[in-house]
């Protein structure tokens, strides 16, 4: 059955794709007057994605956070929204382009995991802690994605001109995401695990990978704040951190374990 959530998501992806094509044209042809077009396109994309989430929530009769498709939809929506509201003005065009490529790719991948919104939700997922755990973790990962984008652009600039200047933005994004990720992925996750499975920590692949992600970003913060690291080394840690984050999100489908449904 063709539900409205999928149609609205496709429209949103198309609008993000249009936005990235316009930014690419703006960069390639050095046209300044295209900025409004891609901003309107991305803004409309966010609107359609919001509608897709609302439609899915109504169809499923719950907040859409229970499987990988819904998680990716919420994650990319938050990424687009936070970029649009907080970082758009501070981002160079190249970073906006990389961010839209990331969003479009992730949303493209999410279609592989599309599920019937009226399908069964496991009773274990019917918990208040689902919303705390998943939404905070997704929000934290959103900021890690922003840091990933600025780090990529920084690395390219280092390679080209031996000069990157987005380190401060990367740090700001990670310092915003790290407490959210700590509270959501680790703390709320462990408390929910205790309520659902009887143990705070089970060495489940997704738990372990979340710990690895946390350690990588903790290392980033220590390297910057205590040891005063700057430049490429920090950008590389940020990129590794987000690649591991993606592996944590999608890896549980391959690795199985207690989180194999999400």
């Amino acid at each position: 059955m063709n539900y409205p959530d999928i149609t609205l998501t496709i429209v949103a992806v198309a609008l993000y794709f249009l936005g990235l094509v316009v930014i690419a044209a703006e960069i390639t042809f050095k046209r300044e007057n295209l900025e409004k077009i891609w901003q309107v396109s991305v803004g409309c994309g966010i609107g359609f994605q919001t509608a897709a989430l609302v439609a899915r929530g109504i169809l499923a009769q719950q907040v859409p956070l229970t499987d990988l498709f819904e998680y990716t939809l919420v994650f990319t929506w938050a990424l687009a929204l936070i970029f649009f509201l907080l970082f758009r003005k501070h981002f160079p065009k190249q970073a906006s382009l990389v961010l839209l490529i990331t969003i479009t790719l992730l949303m493209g991948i999410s279609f592989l995991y599309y599920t019937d919104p009226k399908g069964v939700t496991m009773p274990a997922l019917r918990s208040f802690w689902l919303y705390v755990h998943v939404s905070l973790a997704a929000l934290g990962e959103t900021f890690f994605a922003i840091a990933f984008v600025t780090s990529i652009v920084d690395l390219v600039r280092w390679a080209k001109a031996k000069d990157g200047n987005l380190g401060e933005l990367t740090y700001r994004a990670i310092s915003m995401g790290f407490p959210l990720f700590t509270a959501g992925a680790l703390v709320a996750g462990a408390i929910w695990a205790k309520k659902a499975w009887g143990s705070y920590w089970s060495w489940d692949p997704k738990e372990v990978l979340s710990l690895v992600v946390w350690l990588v970003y903790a290392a980033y913060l220590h390297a910057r704040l205590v040891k005063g690291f700057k430049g490429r080394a920090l950008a590389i840690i940020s990129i590794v951190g987000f690649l591991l984050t993606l592996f944590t999100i999608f890896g549980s489908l391959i690795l199985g374990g207690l989180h194999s449904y999400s």
Partner: protein
Amino acid sequence: MAFLRKIFGVVTSTKIGLIVMIVIAGLSLIGGVIPQNAPRDFYLQQYGPGFGKLLLTLELDHVFRTNYYSILLIAFSLMVFACALKRLPVAIRLARRPEPLTEIEQLRKQPFKASLILDVDPEEARLHIVDVLKRRFYKVATKAVDSRTYVQASKNAFSRYGSFILHLSFVLLLIGGLAIARFGRERIHEVRVGNSFDFVAARGETINVDVEDFRVETDNEGRLRDYICEVEAAGKDLGRAWYRIRPNHPLGYGGVDIYLESYEEDAENPSGFLVSVYDSSGELIVPHVFVPRDDYVRVDEIDATLKADVGVVPTIREISDAGVTTHFIYQSAEEASSDSLPIRFVLIHAIPSVIVSLKEVRQPGQVFIIAGFTLLTFGTIVSLYLSHRKIWFIVEPTSEGRSQVHFGGRSNRHTRAFEAEFERVKATLDELS
């Protein structure tokens, strides 16, 4: 003493701490990717004899239970604890109310500084400055020396303790983890519905749990909604209590939690039968009715059962098999005296009995874990979202009876946000110029 200092230096070294973190992260990644605790042959088949043997030699088939992983975790926690101790005096010193800066030159060395002439006398200027700062949640102290007034203000001084709190949380989590590992208990009770089991609560009270019912709940469209296990618990202090154990809703009593782990249907031993009821003329009376297994009586047992149950419990009179459908004649004790008998029951299907797995968990270190999690969350938020801001003012009278105000400020992080705040303070004061 020098040796101890050297050891303390190594243990509190950020560089070594980072290396330990990376090693733990690497081993955890390996443990997350390679299936853990599988049989030996699995690794030899999955990864080939060479690599598989290497994995087994390095104990990577059970990374999280190896001695070296435990040692790394303990070493990491000790390092974190030592770092916390090292940082505490620094945090206390930095969090103290700022020393008054009495020289204008000192203010000019701050990252953000300004000078204004206000159209009010120094006392009014001081009151205005204090008011502006207090409205921005600064803690303010003033001091007058000769004709000059010194104002120093700070905000979010406690954020200096964020890093200490964060490090301390690890120590609490480690203590909690060790307490659970050493004194914790986990046991699975596999109980057939209708049977019971015992567990011992924290104060030695024995609790008997009678599993009365288990059901899978569905919504109107037949979609799975919930698993519900109804139990009656009885104990000396508890008395009798009824609980519904569901996913996310364990039974908790006396430091012990009982979780619904799984369930299994046992078709070989039905708990009862779903049947349709027809009267003697063959007309359907009730389409579906559940006949409990206790009331199921084989033909050869009829007489004995009837004698026992007359006037009390409905009893199956006769059972026979006819092709795929089993049908049996039924007669209740009450109806036995009426003329409308016999009533015929047609079997729809046998309902399997259910065996539920209930997990008994006792985790005595929980208080440390909860405290650790609270401090971990609080520590990260305080140390990354808040910044310790300080502003100093020197107010002195001018020859025209006005006030000259010099001020400067600094923040340990979020300097852009502080710059914006500094500018707003300046703009507010400027209204008096």
